[in-house]
């Protein structure tokens, strides 16, 4: 079985004055989160879409889902966790409890604020995770990546041809993902920025697949303006 996990656990807003998490902000006719969930909803290979959400916004998210999809058991809103990986683990716990977890259980994890993800990207994630166990979506780095450990001077400039920018989805065989997470020390957990890093830390392969430059993450007000202009919406 394949599950979509649309990560909507963020509470903080980098969107300026608003207190509303960015995934609930409206883009075109509906909240960003709903655009993203719909991409998974119309993919028939996805059995169920789990939307882990910050506790304070769970009821709001449930209302949005019901308004958008009517009564459906294909989309379920659950409590998110403290960190991104805790949130993913909450979703996996939900799957285990309600559907069971076996070697063929695939999770396609995706940022709720990336509504421009395409059908092809989701399909390739499913295929890749099934074949390789873990995969990450990325695009070649357009800018030169510069490392500065102290923030004052450059410590290294990696070869740009070897650099990619990570996007989502990131997809995994759920059972192995859970095993790896449970094997991590607290120190290791503290340095994680995403789920793929767990595999890298443990020396396991994560397969790479190409995303799209336009599969942007809407984080800052600037991104919102870009997203609005992409869909031809007048800035309000």
């Amino acid at each position, binding site marked *: 079985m394949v599950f979509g996990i649309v990560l909507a656990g963020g509470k903080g807003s980098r969107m300026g004055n608003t207190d509303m998490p960015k995934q609930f902000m409206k883009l075109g006719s509906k909240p960003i989160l709903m*655009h993203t969930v719909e991409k998974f909803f119309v993919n028939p290979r996805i059995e169920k879409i789990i939307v882990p959400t910050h506790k304070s916004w769970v009821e709001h998210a449930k209302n949005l889902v019901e308004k958008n999809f009517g009564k459906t058991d294909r989309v379920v809103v659950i409590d998110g966790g403290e960190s991104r990986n805790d949130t993913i683990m909450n979703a996996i716990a939900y799957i285990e409890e309600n559907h069971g977890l076996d070697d063929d259980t695939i999770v396609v994890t995706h940022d709720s604020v990336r*509504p421009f993800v395409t059908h092809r990207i989701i399909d390739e994630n499913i295929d890749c995770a099934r074949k390789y166990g873990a995969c990450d979506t990325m695009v070649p780095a357009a800018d030169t990546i510069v490392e500065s450990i102290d923030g004052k001077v450059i410590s290294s400039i990696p070869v740009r041809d070897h650099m990619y920018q990570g996007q989502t989805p990131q997809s995994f065989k759920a059972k192995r993902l859970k095993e790896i997470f449970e094997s991590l020390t607290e120190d290791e957990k503290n340095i994680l920025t995403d789920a793929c890093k767990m595999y890298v830390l443990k020396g396991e392969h994560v397969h790479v697949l190409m995303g799209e430059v336009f599969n942007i993450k809407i984080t800052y007000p600037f991104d919102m303006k870009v997203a609005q202009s992409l*869909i031809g919406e007048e800035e309000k």
Partner: protein
Amino acid sequence: MINAVYQLVSPRMIDVTYKEVDLTAGEVVLRPYKLSICKADQRYYQGMRSQAALKAKLPMALVHECVAQVIYDPTGTFNVGDFVVPIPTVPTETDEIIAENYLRSSYFRSSGNDGFLQDIITATPDRLVKLPDNMNMNVASFSELVSVSVHAMRRFDKIAHSRRNKIGIWGDGNVGYITALLFHYLYPETELYIFGTVEEKLSYFSFAKATYHVDHVPEGVAIDHGFECVGGAGSRSAINQMIDLINPEGTMSLMGVSENFVDINTRMVLEKGLRLYGSSRSGREDFEQTVELYKKFPRLVSRLDNLVGDVVQVKTIPDIHSAFDKDIHRSFGKTVIDWAK
């Protein structure tokens, strides 16, 4: 949901744009599976249309020949996974006399409206025709083109008098080949005479009674009815040669598109009492009949497979250019796009 639409913004320049799709609009959601490039797409792509036409119609997603897979159907008409052919003609009214493809109020996908080069496409159930199981998907991708010939045949059946012993088809390209094939299967007793300009292309018409180079037609060749599948600069000579060779009261089906006005020998049209009628695009009934013909004549599908030329997998916008570049160098056959974008 936000959909990625790959539009021609100016000749040879394709860019992605994004459009909202309403899942509650009562439309079936489809993923393009294979698409086929049509001459009309090439005319836009190469900038061969008038500046006025380009200005009026671009930006626009090209391609109106496609086979797609149902991924979500809130109407309950289709099963998820069904392969269907989308009908690019979209009527906005019904008329008991005038066919939907001739209604001036109908619109056409990839002519003023976005065609099928999109991440996903949507259509109302009446604009979709389900394909039989085990269909050859490369052939299915150009079902729209086949349906145009089916439409021409149906019009012929209504308009032409009943003496149909000898049919002449001008044009040794894709439309000529498909139209001739349909005649071969639907009217097996009829003798087919093909008039073209390229020997190699004419050699594909092995089922015809005879093929002629237009400059070397023997004395005494005559036909009861004719089909013009030439278009462009060749329309004038094709139509007038047909007028010379056709028997009195014959009908002439005009199927080729020309950017320019065409001089026609109307004196002989009058003297012979000929009927010239246009035939363009197709509607739902033609698509349905096309699919029925696929089921009834498996060998028709095998013959249509001879038209499949390059099959180009498209994962990037440069791949789309590559498909169009390959297609422009092809004098016969269809370029199929394997949609993986």
